[in-house]
């Protein structure tokens, strides 16, 4: 099953099971079914609760906040993650603060879905990974889809936590197949050493030379790098993909990281104040004396994301960048 179909099923299941759930977004109703077809078919089944909206990102996230405040579950699709900047006030100053600013916990089951990332030639305003701009907001959680995590379990779990969440969805991932039954390919397997943390490993999960932590959107590049490291450099690298990026469940990752002593973080975000910095700080605090080298960050360049394919490739995180950085770091 493709990731986009898994996500579509997850949304359908939330709407089916919860008569108070709403799904809002631009161009999401049939026959169009959303810019990336994630919501295809849903408005035909739930015409009153799956609503196409005006081009008003701030407004529709505010509507989602109002629905959540009044007792509904609300899911809002931002057509391109770049546009979530227009909803910054509603996310940061209203939905997230409302959880605690009234002196008692207020349930706010609101999920803002953000199709993110480049690699499709959409250019500087339609290709970003804005995760880093939302890290460290009290009351706000960040999630990212992956080909390992079943969204039919993840999405209801996020809503049950009843705190506002951003769900990042890498655009290139939509068309990929979900992995099933613990098998990645002929070389690699996967399991879940902790709830919502997927681990990709070679043969035995207990032995590896290093660990690579990456968000779901980087899965393909990270898996490619893990294969090449093994086949071309005889380096055994484990890959950890947490579904929740922030707050990161660091305790769940520590047993794996401790064993390796060598940790890398790969993400598509452009350089500067990235998610990886947050991960590195958490790992350093927990394992400083046990690491062979400081956590190494691998990310895109300090640049806007250009449109032409060859230029985009120069800027964005590549499989080869991950591979090269790991080899060079371990060699040193």
């Amino acid at each position, binding site marked *: 099953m493709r990731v986009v179909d898994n996500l579509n099923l997850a949304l359908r299941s939330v709407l089916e099971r919860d008569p108070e759930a709403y799904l809002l977004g631009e161009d999401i109703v049939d026959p169009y079914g959303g810019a990336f077809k994630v919501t295809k078919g849903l408005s035909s089944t739930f015409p009153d609760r799956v609503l196409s909206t*005006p081009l008003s990102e*701030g407004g529709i996230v505010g509507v989602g906040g109002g629905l959540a405040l009044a007792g509904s579950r609300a899911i809002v699709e931002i057509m391109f993650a770049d546009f979530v900047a227009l909803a910054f006030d509603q996310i940061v100053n209203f939905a997230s603060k409302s959880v605690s600013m009234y002196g008692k916990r207020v349930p706010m089951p609101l999920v803002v879905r953000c199709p993110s990332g480049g690699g499709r030639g959409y250019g500087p305003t339609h290709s970003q990974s804005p995760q880093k701009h939302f890290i460290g907001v009290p009351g706000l959680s960040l999630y990212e889809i992956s080909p390992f995590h079943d969204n039919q379990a993840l999405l209801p779990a996020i809503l049950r936590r009843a705190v506002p969440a951003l769900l990042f969805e890498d655009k290139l991932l939509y068309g990929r197949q979900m992995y099933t039954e613990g098998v990645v390919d002929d070389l690699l397997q996967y399991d879940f050493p902790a709830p919502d943390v997927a681990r990709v490993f070679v043969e035995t999960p207990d032995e590896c030379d290093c660990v690579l932590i990456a968000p779901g959107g980087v899965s393909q590049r990270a898996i490619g790098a893990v294969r090449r490291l093994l086949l071309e450099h005889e380096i055994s690298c484990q890959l950890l993909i947490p579904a929740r990026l922030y707050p990161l469940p660091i305790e769940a990752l520590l047993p794996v990281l401790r064993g390796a002593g060598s940790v890398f973080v790969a993400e598509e975000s452009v350089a500067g104040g990235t998610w990886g910095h947050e991960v590195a700080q958490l790992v350093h605090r927990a394992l400083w004396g046990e690491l062979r080298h400081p956590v190494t960050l691998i990310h895109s360049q300090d640049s806007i994301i250009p449109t032409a394919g060859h230029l985009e490739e120069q800027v964005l995180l590549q499989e080869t960048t991950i591979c090269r950085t790991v080899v060079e770091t371990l060699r040193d």
Partner: protein
Amino acid sequence: MTSAVATADRAKERTPLTDEDLLLLLMIRRFEEELLRLFGAGLLNGTTHTCLGQEYVPVALRTLIGLEDFVFSNHRGHGHYLARYQDLRGLLAEIMGREGAVCNGVGGSQHILRDRYLSTGVQGQSLPVAVGVALRLKHAEPGRLVCAHIGDGTWGEGSVYEALNMAALWRLPLLVVVEHNGIAQSTPTTAQMAGTIADRVKAFGIDHHRTESTDIGEIRAELDPMIQRSREASLPLVVEFATHRVGPHSKGDDTRPPDVIERAEAHDWHRSYATAFPERFAHADERARSLVEEVVAEVQDLPPAVWTEQ
């Protein structure tokens, strides 16, 4: 002289109001005055925005908006809260960070949540949220509405137009109450708003009603059928009060020239009701003063609020 006579005549024509409404009006007035005094004495932390001159707006609306309706308030919200809950103690404790505070001292003057009442401090932020609540009410509790208070300055925010568009498009029971006091903090409306609120609202096909009255009975009679229609037909409505901010924006920051302030004071409901019903007014005022004084004395001595649900 002529204008003074005209004002007096108008005052005499005031429709009678209940003791409860009169007391409430004066309680809010005394509460706000007392806050400014407490600030002056260095007894309050942070900032506050009083509704001096605008107290009649929520008092007039309180019989038209029930506890089952939602109310969204803004930075200038003490009157909105007190008109709905008559809870001097809880509000003062909130502003002073004392035990018994409505939101445990976390929200303070401009971030209050109690049942279906919510205030928040960013201009225009509440309107899309109010649209979301109205969307739910339309389906889950037809007949209920959402009342959102904003000011004339709020019309500079794009979120207002995004919200009005959706409310009209989806036919939602949203009552937007505009307290148009002619000044946004220190900037006169004429320097920050092109055109009129009426025309802006008209562009969305939403009903707009402007009232210059400060007479509680008159306002209720005017608005009752319109608000009923908004509920029954599930339609948005914008009611614009031509009102006057008698006090400063916040505390001691009034840069308006004296003649502008005098004009605001000439429109104050306070004078008109004092002239129209002198004895009842004096009696109610005495009662309001003592209620507020009692609460101030009591709350000042309470221990600090405790925040446990971080």
